[in-house]
């Protein structure tokens, strides 16, 4: 519904805004923040089947009868919880930057 209307009413000069230093810096900061986490969690995730499928390193006992395969799987859970918390905290800072950009370029 809104798409059609919005399309005709494109009054903002988006090409200009995305070229502003503020916006470019925001996008860069966001990417520099999230890229290492994304690479890390995908790598950690797909390392599990590679290690269980092609090697025996995770088959040995870790704590009593619990072997390293389970420890690895549990550490994935911890990773998810830690990464979501980090993301949450970081995102609050980005929110402030976004507010500034909107205020400066749109609401002036």
């Amino acid at each position, binding site marked *: 519904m809104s798409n059609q209307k919005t399309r005709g009413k494109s009054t903002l000069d*988006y090409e200009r805004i995305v070229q502003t230093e503020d916006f470019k810096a925001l996008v860069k900061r966001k990417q520099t923040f999230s890229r290492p986490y994304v690479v890390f969690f995908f790598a950690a995730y797909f390392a599990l089947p590679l290690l269980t499928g092609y090697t025996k390193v995770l088959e040995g006992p870790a704590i009593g*009868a*619990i072997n390293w395969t389970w420890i690895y*799987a549990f550490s994935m859970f911890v990773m998810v919880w830690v990464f979501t918390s980090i993301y949450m905290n970081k995102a609050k800072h980005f929110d402030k930057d976004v507010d500034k950009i909107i205020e400066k370029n749109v609401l002036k």
Partner: protein
Amino acid sequence: MSAISYVIFFSVIALTLYITYWAAKQTTTASDFYTAGGSLTGWQNGMAIAGDYLSAASFLGIAGAISLNGFDGFYYSVGWLTAYLVVLFLIAEPLRNLGKFTMADMIGARFGAKKVRGAAALNTITIVMFYMLAQLVGAGALIKLLFGIEYWIAVLIVGTMMLIYVLFGGMTATSWVQIIKAVLLMAGTIIISFLVLLKFNFNFIGMFDAMKTATPHGEAFLQSGVVYKDTVGLISVLIALVLGTAGLPHILMRFFTVKDAKTARSSVIYSVWIIGIFYVLTIFLGFGAAKFVGVDAIVAENAAGNMAAPMLAGVLGGDALESFVAAVAFATILAVVAGLVLSGASAIAHDIYGQIFKNGKVTEKQQVNAARWASISIGVFSILLALGSEKLNVAFLVSLAFCVAASANVPTILLTIYWKKFNTTGAVASMLTGLIVALVLVAISPSVMNPVEGATLITGNPIFPYANPAIVSVPAGFLAAWIGTLVGAKRPEKDEIAYAEVRFKAETGYKELEN
């Protein structure tokens, strides 16, 4: 079943119906119907996401898979939880910022062509149908087990209940049923886990020790490889699990039930904690069922192990706990199918009817009416399909839905947000290629073709070796996006919104025509 079982079972159902009655009085606009008016708070939506996610496949399926296959069953828990990092880091906020009711809205925010919206709607409907079929078949089996009634009557009862929730209560009712169900499901799971631990004298390590001798698999039960002997096949399954969530229409729709990206983000945090804790507890459900119910008994009841959790509840807590768990499982299925009907109906009523045929020129009343009729059509159609699908494996249908979501939707969603050169032809090519490749490969996979007569739909040697084709179909979706974009670059479409605008809105949540 004893009298107390009936009382518990029907109390849970009555509670969900009361919520629907309450919600019906608040549902007037299209936005109320599809997205509860965007009024849910972070924790409410987080609970509802958890509720949507902890479907029959999670609760009944994973518990059964761990009890029968040990660690290989736990791969589901790991994959489905890690999937939330993909959702949170890459998709949740841009999706909320660009979309309105549906996934197609978000893609349509960049590519206005009707064929793009049509392809997105087609994918949504396909995924919803597979997912819904799985839940309905599961619910039918559960009710059949509990009350000893015929499968077809059971499916009709479930189907009618599902339509009542959706038609009268819309998304408000569906969300609140999900929230309450998530609480009950967690409570039930914690009680069972506690009882399992009690049996092992609260010795977590000792429980693992006991599992070495509890099943026919012996020590292999605690290692990877009971089912997934082929590593490429395992990786293929894991691709579908981790990417599929980010393309599931009924999960994506949940990001539109909150007011902004901030709330969408906080709801993911809540759901990640609830889902994570639940998945840790699936170990107790699975191990407990293997040890105290026994593999033979579980398989005798249901070959896929789907009844492991309710049976374990019966062994540990008697009739009362078993019927409580069964009632929660039933409410789970009802709430999930209601959410599925809504996302399917939104694709039909909002995307196809509203945007494609009416160019967005529909009144609020027409919208809600169209959505109700679409819900009835989808509901009736899926009930008819479910009636003929009693023998289909529930886990197979769900994994198929995840695979189609990962192959057909995820490449387009990601590239719409992050790739500047992506264009209309690329989007359509990617969505259709992902869908077709996934469906065709499944049709010639061991899930459908088996040399043992009667084991699957077709008797014969499978042409494609892996039950889950994600390892081929997901790259196919991305490849088609790239090739389509190269082809399309030669003849630009006029309905495309400049990437600068999409990028700005995705990052900041800025919207024109804000009320």
